[in-house]
């Protein structure tokens, strides 16, 4: 053996000194990196995304079988309550058909009114679908990594949605990966409005599952069960995207349960508003976009 196990016996004082020095050096580098991350955020971000780009294929390879196993479990559960599910869906289908008739009528009415007014159409939007491969744990951050990056047209500030509603927005972009800051993160601010009362507010994450509404008008009394949608103010999120539902309203603050199930994020749609393309979405169209978080 070349290296006997005496390395840590700290025989020579010189070795102690070298170790102390290495320790202090590493501490200094770590602190330096934290300061650098604050002072030179764009640079640090670029380096960070290069590393993430390199790791994302590994994550993708691991995430796929995990997703497959989860699907098998879900399939079994589905088969077990097929009957109840069928009844529920039939009922829902009946309801939705009514809504479809209403929507058709409104669409036609809208169309004719717009023609009357020479309304400027909303810019259309394009989107990229990306697989969620990273969901870093921990207590102080809510973000996910996806497998689409700048080469797919993803850019900072784009909105990430699922079929259920708003999930977050793009904060860091690598070549083939991007990081999405979720709306539950402490750094997330989403201008929203309450769908019934039309009261405006800001949805602020606090790293819990239930982000809170702040800056509500003084006389606003949000009702539990009221839907919350994006308001489009500030130009980051387009108006009208579903966000969540009020679950608590009182002295302790107003809490919202997001429509998106963050425990089961698999795919995200990253939407680029304002470019040419087609997207069957409610009401896209901010004119400016804030690039920074």
């Amino acid at each position, binding site marked *: 053996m070349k290296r006997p196990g005496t390395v840590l016996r700290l025989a020579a004082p010189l070795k102690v000194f070298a*170790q102390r020095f290495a320790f202090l050096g590493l501490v200094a580098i770590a602190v330096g990196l934290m300061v650098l991350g604050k002072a030179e955020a764009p640079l640090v971000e670029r380096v960070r995304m290069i590393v993430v780009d390199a790791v994302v294929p590994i994550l993708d390879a*691991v995430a796929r079988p995990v997703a497959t196993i*989860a699907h098998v479990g879900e399939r079994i559960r589905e088969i077990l309550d097929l009957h109840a599910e069928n009844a529920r869906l039939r009922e829902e289908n009946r309801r939705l058909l009514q809504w479809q008739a209403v929507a058709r009528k409104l669409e036609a009415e809208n169309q004719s009114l717009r023609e009357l007014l020479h309304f400027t159409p909303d810019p259309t939007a394009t989107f990229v679908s990306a697989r969620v491969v990273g969901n*870093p744990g921990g207590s102080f951050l*809510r973000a996910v990594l996806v497998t689409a990056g700048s080469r797919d047209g993803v850019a900072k500030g784009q909105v990430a949605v699922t079929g259920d509603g708003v999930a977050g927005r793009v904060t860091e972009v690598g070549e083939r990966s991007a990081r999405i800051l979720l709306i539950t993160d*402490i750094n997330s601010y989403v201008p929203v409005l309450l769908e019934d009362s039309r009261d405006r507010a800001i949805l602020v994450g606090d790293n819990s599952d239930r982000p809170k509404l702040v800056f509500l008008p003084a006389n606003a009394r949000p009702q539990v069960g009221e839907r919350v949608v994006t308001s489009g103010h500030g130009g980051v999120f387009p108006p009208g995207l579903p966000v969540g539902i009020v679950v608590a309203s009182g002295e302790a603050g107003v809490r919202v349960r997001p429509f998106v199930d963050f425990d089961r994020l698999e795919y995200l749609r990253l939407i680029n508003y304002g470019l040419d393309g087609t997207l069957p979405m409610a009401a896209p169209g901010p004119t400016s976009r804030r690039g920074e978080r």
Partner: protein
Amino acid sequence: MTPTLLQRLDLSIRQSAPVAITLLIAILMVVPLPLPGYTELAPDFVLIAVFYWTVHRPDLMRAWTVFLIGLLQDILGGGPLGLLALVLILVHAAIINQHKAFRGKSFGLIWAGFVLIAPAAHIVAAVLAFIVADASIEPSAFGFRLVLTIAAYPAVAWLLGRAQRAFLAGTAGQ
């Protein structure tokens, strides 16, 4: 008898097992599992692995590799760069300092050491996150995660012990 090149290569691959396993855990930790609350509550397996290897094979888990492991976690997790790197080297230094206290001790005593170090590490991380990134944490999730991390230690340590015997039996060290 001088070892042949192949033997030396074999040895160095075996000796890189602790770091390789810990890096792998750091990467796998990021993979999303469709379990409720997994993201917030998943035990800190990386901390367990760094603790285990630093206690049992400090010769194979050096300060700078611990630093790199923490840095990878910071990069993948998206938290402030250098934060977990700093926390992990502090953990590493604490164990090295108290190495005599850990040497040859029973599993229970080593676990007790982890019970002391894990909360300290998580509290330092939370305080740093608050200072650097203004990030507050949810106390209940913080507490649960800590409890789960401590509870997960025996199982993970057992698996790492198997790995240690598989890869490192007969190599230098404890």
